């Protein structure tokens, strides 16, 4: 375990301390994150707000184990992340993280069912089991009659539902949603938020949602404001 962090033990899913991320752009060093410390409890619904360039995406990349911090400690669901190699990171993403993207990111050639199966194929789940779990995940998001459709044959809202089914199918410790309603009309957006919150209520999924939209942030239990790579009190950022 990372030194210095020993908080509520089992109750916190995310324990991050002094996360710093520095990029080199040519000769100039860009500080995307300058010491972010945060803890998220199991079952919590948290939103992250902030203007563009404030480091939201970088923070999400690190929380989702897509990228490693330049320095700082990060423990995700009991596993110390910062010292893992590429393959171990892939395995953590596979087992513990579900992603929902603004642009859905479905494989265009595959059916909804195959798209939902994808994380399980990398987890090594057998074909029959995989199919069955993907079916029930799609049923849970209300797409029982669209399983064999390809993404191009689905509306934006339906595509995002497939993406949510895909994010939940491996029972992750945390679901990270990056502007999940950003590409949707307000009606579909509302439905998607309901779906995400429902998964939190019914399965206790921990949700972290990055958003620009104050209405969305208002539906979460806690709002974190990020500005210039640092967490700030709400008044400053708004």
């Amino acid at each position, binding site marked *: 375990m990372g030194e210095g962090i020993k908080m509520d033990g089992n109750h916190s899913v995310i324990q991050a301390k002094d996360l710093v991320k520095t990029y080199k752009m040519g000769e100039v060093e860009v500080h995307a994150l300058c010491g972010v410390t945060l803890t998220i409890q199991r079952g919590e619904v948290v939103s992250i707000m902030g203007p563009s360039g404030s480091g939201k995406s970088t923070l999400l990349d690190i929380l989702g184990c897509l*990228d490693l911090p330049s320095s700082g400690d990060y423990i995700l669901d009991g596993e110390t992340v910062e010292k893992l190699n590429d393959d171990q990171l892939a395995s953590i993403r596979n*087992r513990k993280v579900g992603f929902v993207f603004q642009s859905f990111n479905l494989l265009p050639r595959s059916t909804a069912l195959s798209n939902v199966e994808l994380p399980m*194929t*990398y987890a090594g789940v057998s074909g029959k089991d995989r199919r069955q779990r993907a079916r029930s995940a799609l049923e849970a998001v209300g797409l029982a009659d669209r399983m064999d459709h390809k993404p191009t044959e689905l509306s934006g809202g339906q595509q995002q539902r497939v993406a949510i089914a895909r994010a939940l199918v491996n029972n992750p410790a945390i679901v990270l949603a990056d502007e999940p309603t950003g590409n949707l009309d307000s009606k579909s957006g509302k439905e998607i938020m309901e779906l995400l919150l429902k998964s939190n209520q019914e399965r206790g999924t921990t949700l972290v949602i990055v958003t620009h939209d104050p209405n969305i942030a208002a539906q979460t239990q806690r709002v974190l404001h990020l500005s210039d790579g640092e967490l700030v009190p709400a008044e400053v950022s708004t």
Partner: protein
Amino acid sequence: MNFSQYLVDAFGSLTSNKLRSSLTILGIVIGVAAVVSMLAIGQGAENSISNSINNIGTNLLFISSGGGPGVRVTNPKPLLLSDVTVLSDPSQAPDVEYVTGVLNIRGDVSANGQDTSTSVVGVSPNYAVMRNLTVAEGEFITSDNINTRSAVAVIGTDVATNLFNRTDNIVGQTIRVQNQLFKVIGVLESKGGGGFGSQDNQVLVPITTAQSRLARRANRNQVDQILISAASSSQVQAAETEVTQILRSRHHLADNAQADFYILSQSDILSSASSITGTLTVFLGGIGGISLVVGGIGIMNIMLVTVTERTREIGLRKALGARKRDIRAQFLIESLLLSMLGGAIGVLLAWVISNLIAQISEANGTPITPSISLNAVLLATFFSAGVGCFFGLYPANRAANLEPVEALRAE
């Protein structure tokens, strides 16, 4: 992720871009077809040449006067009919089975007012056995013919056709050689073409008759060549040694003196011919190989384009838990599938090409039967798989090493 899943994925992505995939495959098809059919043609040429060499007889040694190719000998002693007699003596040359002198005579042959240019050869009765000749009608030259120096001839089927427009009912006809009348006593069975001077286009006469009536040689006893056959292939070497010793002593050569005759064995001819055709085969295969490499570069090119196009997909797969080796395997299997499909179609195409060439060459009178050996097919399969691996590895590694964050944000 298991192999069949990769295969299904790869197949899906190849069929989603059919034109591009089939053009890429075409490069490999042409390469593999070139290699396999070139090897088949080379093999076919080798077979047909070694067949025609084997056709001239078995375990033969050809002895000629002089120094052999590239060796100068001054005043070589001629080979004589008495040499033939001595070499025929089993007590002196136990490994020699048959011996005959050979006299080659120029001159047109005519009959019925028809002329034909052919080779007239003076031989003894053994010649038929040694050269695997059989008579289709009549009989071969007998020892009686030799002893009485009869004016008789055995003719090949080409000669028969040229002079009489038929190949049967010829025995008893007369032909003119150097304006002397010869009675046809036999017609040889056709042996078919073959690069080694057609055996169907010759007139055989008793060697004694040739010496006294046709040849104008300084020594009436002289022969142009002595043909020897060993009793078995294992005795060829021993026979050659015996012949050398006998001729050296008859020519009174000192131990260290250069021989004034040379011996060429059938296996020498065979091995030099097969080394030529072997070189030819390698050369042809090499040309095919170049086009296979070009096809491989085509695969690499397309795979690099594919990786670039699918950067986001790669990023997504990584976000969902794909390890480097999953991504590498995915793209490697895709390029392998391209190259193996190309290989399979290429072998089929090679089969078609070989059959076409067999028909063309037969129509032209020099039958080559290209043979697609299992080895050539295996070679092509391994080679195309190797090409797929080699040229697919770099794009696959490039895909595997993409940073998930950057790949996901790629446009």
